[in-house]
C-alpha cells in the first residue's frame, strides 16, 4: 500500500538561521527533487521551498525508510549536519500529511494568516515537479485538490480580506475615501521607511503627481528624484494642501506640522474635495483636531495599527470556516484514496482466482481426452461462472467497505485472506 508522507520544517518549528540553511533556490529544488525521485523508497515527490518553509511531499510504500532517506538527503545536499535541524522537522503521514498540504495551500499555516503568495509558490513547485515527471496519480490528485480547496477558501471565506499591514491599511482607507487612487496627488512630508513603503503602494495604484517636502530641501530633492516627484520647500506645505489629495507625514518634528487653520483655509479653494492625512510620525505631525473638519480624514499610526489588529482578528474568525472547508476536502480525498486502493485489489483478486482456476484446469484437462467443441465451450462457461460466483461477495464487500466507514480495513482483510501481496 502506498502512503503519503510529508517531511519539513516551517517558521513555527525552525528559526530563520536554520530555514535559510535549508532553503532551496528554484534550480536547486529541481535538482533535489530529481535526486529524491531516484531513491528506491520514494515513488512520487514534490519539494516546496519558500522563505518560511521547506517541505518534501512524497508517496512511498515504505514510509519509515523514506523519512530517514529524506533527512539524510537534506543534510547531505545542503551540507548541514542533521542534528542541527532534526528537532525542527515534522513528519506527517497519511491523512495528517494530506491535511497539512491543504492547510498550507489555503494559507492557514502561513506566518501572515491568509496571505496569498503561498498558493502561487506551491503551484510553481508543482509545475517544476510535473516537468521532472516526479509526480504520479496520487500527488497529482492531492495537489489539484489542494489548489482547488485553497481557491474555495479564498472565495468563500474572508480570510484574504482586508489589509494586515500598516501601509496596505492606509491604501485600503484611501480607496474607501476616493474610490480610485489613480491620479490622486500625494504630498510626502518628511521621509521614513514606512512612508516610502506607502508611497510605493500608492505609485503601484497609479497615483498622480508626488510632492515632497522636507526640512532640508536637498534631502527632499533626492527623495523626489527617486520617486519621480517634485520637491517643495517646507514652508510651502500650507499652499500645497490646496492641490494634493493624500498627505503622508513622517517628520521628526516635536510639534504639529499641519494644524486645523492650514486645512480650513484651503477647503474652500478645494471646493471641499476630500483630504486624507496619513500620519506615521511619532510624535504626531498632524493635529488630530483636523479630523473634525468636514471631508477631511486623519489617521495616525495607532489608528492604522488598530485597523490592522481588527483585520487580523477578522481573519482568525474566518480561519475557522476555512478549517471546515479543509476538513471536508480531507474527507473527500480519503474517500478517493480508499477507492484507489479498492480498484487494484478487485483486479488483483480476480487475477488470483483466474490463475488458480486456469492452473487447475490446465492440470485436469489433459486427463479428459479430446473434447468436442461444444464440450470445450461448456467447460469455458463453467470456468467463467465459477470465477464470477466466487468473486461476487468479496467484490461487494470491497466496494461498500464491509459496511464500515474505513475501506482500508476491508481492503487489508481481503488482501490477507487471499494472500494478494506475495511478498508479505
Amino acid at each position, binding site marked *: 500500500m502506498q502512503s503519503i508522507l510529508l517531511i519539513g520544517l516551517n517558521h513555527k518549528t525552525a528559526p530563520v538561521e536554520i530555514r535559510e540553511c535549508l532553503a532551496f533556490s528554484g534550480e536547486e529544488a529541481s535538482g533535489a527533487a530529481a535526486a529524491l525521485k531516484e531513491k528506491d523508497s520514494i515513488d512520487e515527490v514534490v519539494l516546496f521551498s519558500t522563505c518560511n518553509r521547506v517541505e518534501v511531499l512524497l508517496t512511498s510504500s515504505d514510509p519509515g525508510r523514506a523519512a530517514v532517506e529524506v533527512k539524510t538527503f537534506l543534510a547531505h545536499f545542503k551540507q548541514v549536519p542533521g542534528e542541527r535541524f532534526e528537532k525542527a522537522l515534522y513528519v506527517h503521514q497519511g491523512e495528517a500529511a494530506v491535511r497539512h498540504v491543504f492547510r498550507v495551500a489555503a494559507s492557514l499555516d502561513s506566518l501572515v494568516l491568509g496571505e496569498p503568495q503561498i498558493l502561487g509558490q506551491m503551484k510553481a513547485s508543482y509545475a517544476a515537479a510535473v516537468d521532472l515527471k516526479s509526480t504520479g496519480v496520487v500527488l497529482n490528485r492531492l495537489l489539484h485538490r489542494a489548489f482547488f480547496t485553497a481557491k474555495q477558501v479564498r472565495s468563500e471565506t474572508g480570510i484574504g480580506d482586508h489589509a494586515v499591514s500598516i501601509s496596505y491599511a492606509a491604501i485600503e482607507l484611501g480607496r474607501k*475615501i476616493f*474610490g480610485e487612487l489613480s491620479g490622486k496627488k500625494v504630498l510626502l512630508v518628511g521621509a521614513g521607511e514606512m512612508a516610502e513603503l506607502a508611497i510605493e503602494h500608492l505609485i503601484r495604484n497609479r497615483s498622480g503627481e508626488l510632492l515632497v517636502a522636507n526640512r532640508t530641501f536637498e534631502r527632499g530633492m533626492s527623495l523626489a528624484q527617486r520617486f519621480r516627484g517634485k520637491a517643495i520647500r517646507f514652508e510651502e506645505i500650507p499652499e500645497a494642501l490646496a492641490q494634493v489629495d493624500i498627505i503622508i507625514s513622517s517628520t521628526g518634528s516635536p510639534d504639529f506640522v499641519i494644524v486645523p487653520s492650514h486645512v480650513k483655509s484651503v477647503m*474652500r479653494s478645494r471646493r471641499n*474635495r*476630500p483630504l486624507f492625512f496619513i500620519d506615521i510620525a511619532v510624535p504626531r505631525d498632524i493635529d488630530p483636531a483636523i479630523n473634525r473638519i468636514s471631508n477631511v480624514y486623519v489617521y495616525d499610526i495607532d489608528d492604522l495599527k488598530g*485597523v490592522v489588529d481588527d483585520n487580523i482578528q477578522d481573519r482568525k474568525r474566518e480561519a475557522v470556516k476555512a478549517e471546515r472547508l479543509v476538513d471536508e476536502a480531507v474527507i473527500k480525498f480519503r474517500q478517493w484514496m480508499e477507492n484507489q486502493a479498492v480498484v487494484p485489489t478487485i483486479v488483483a483478486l480476480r487475477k488470483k482466482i483466474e490463475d488458480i482456476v486456469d492452473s487447475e484446469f490446465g492440470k485436469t484437462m489433459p486427463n479428459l481426452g479430446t473434447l468436442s467443441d461444444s464440450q470445450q465451450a461448456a467447460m469455458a462457461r463453467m470456468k467463467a461462472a465459477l470465477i464470477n460466483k466466487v468473486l461476487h461477495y468479496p467484490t461487494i464487500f470491497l466496494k461498500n467497505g464491509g459496511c464500515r466507514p474505513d475501506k482500508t480495513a476491508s481492503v487489508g482483510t481481503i488482501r490477507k485472506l487471499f494472500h494478494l501481496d506475495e511478498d508479505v
Partner: protein
Amino acid sequence: MHILQLITIFLYLLSTAGYVGYLFFQQNSWEKAGCGLLLTGFLCHTAFIIGGSLTTGLYPGRNMYQTLILAGWAFSGVFLFVRFKFNLRVLGVYAAPFAAVVMMMASRVPTDVFADSRFFKSFWVFFHVLAMFLGNAAFALACGVGILYLIQEKTIKSKTQGFFFKRLPSLELLDSVGYRCIVSGFVFLTIGLAAGFVYAKIAWGRFWSWDPKEVWAAVVWLFYAALLHERLTVGWRGRRAAIMSIIGFAVVLFTFLGVNLFLKGHHGDFTRW
C-alpha cells in the same frame, strides 16, 4: 387586492430578503437573487399598472391607491437604472424594502374613491404625473445614498471599521451617485412642473393658482436648485450634500403626502382615501 399587486409585493419582499442576505453574507449570489426578484417584481408591477389603465381607459393616479402604486413603480424603476448604471448594489438594502412598503401602504387604502375622471384623459396630466414621480423617486434614492454616505463617513471618521466599512462602497462613489440622482430628479421635477403649468392653463385657464401643492412643489424645486447651485459654486459635497439630500426628501414626502392630508387644494382629489 389584485393578484398582480399581491405578486409584486411578494417579489419585493423576497428581494428585500435577498439584499439583507447580501448585506450580511457578502456573497454576490444573494445580490443577484435580490436584483432578479426586484426586476421581476418591477415587470409585474408594470403589467399591473398598464392592465389597470387599459381596463378603465384612463391614465393612472386617480386616488391615493393609484398614486402610491405609481410612486412605488417609479421608485423601483429608478433604482434598477441606478443599480445597473453605477453598479451600486448595496443600495438595494434601502430600495427593495422601500418599494415593498410603498406597495403595502397602497394595499391598505381604499381603491374605490376617485377624482374626476376627465383629468385623466389628458396626456399632459399623465406626462406631468410621470415626470413628477420619476423625479420624486430619484430624490428618494438620493436620500438612501445620502444615508449610506453618512454611515460610511462615520465609520471612517470614527476609525472603527465595523460592520459597514467593507460592505459599503467608497465615499466618492456614494457622493457622485447621490449628486447624479439629484440632478436627474431636478430635471424630471422641472419637466413635471412645466407640464403641470401647461395643463393648468388648459384646465383652469391659469398657470398658477396658489394651490398648496403648487406652492410646496415650488419649495422643493427651490430647495434642490439651491443645493445644486451651492455644489457647483462653492462645492457643497460630501457630508453636507448627504444631509441636504435627506432633508430634501423629507420636504418631498411632505409635498407628496402631507399637503394632501393636512392642507386642501385641487390636488387633494387625486389622493382621496
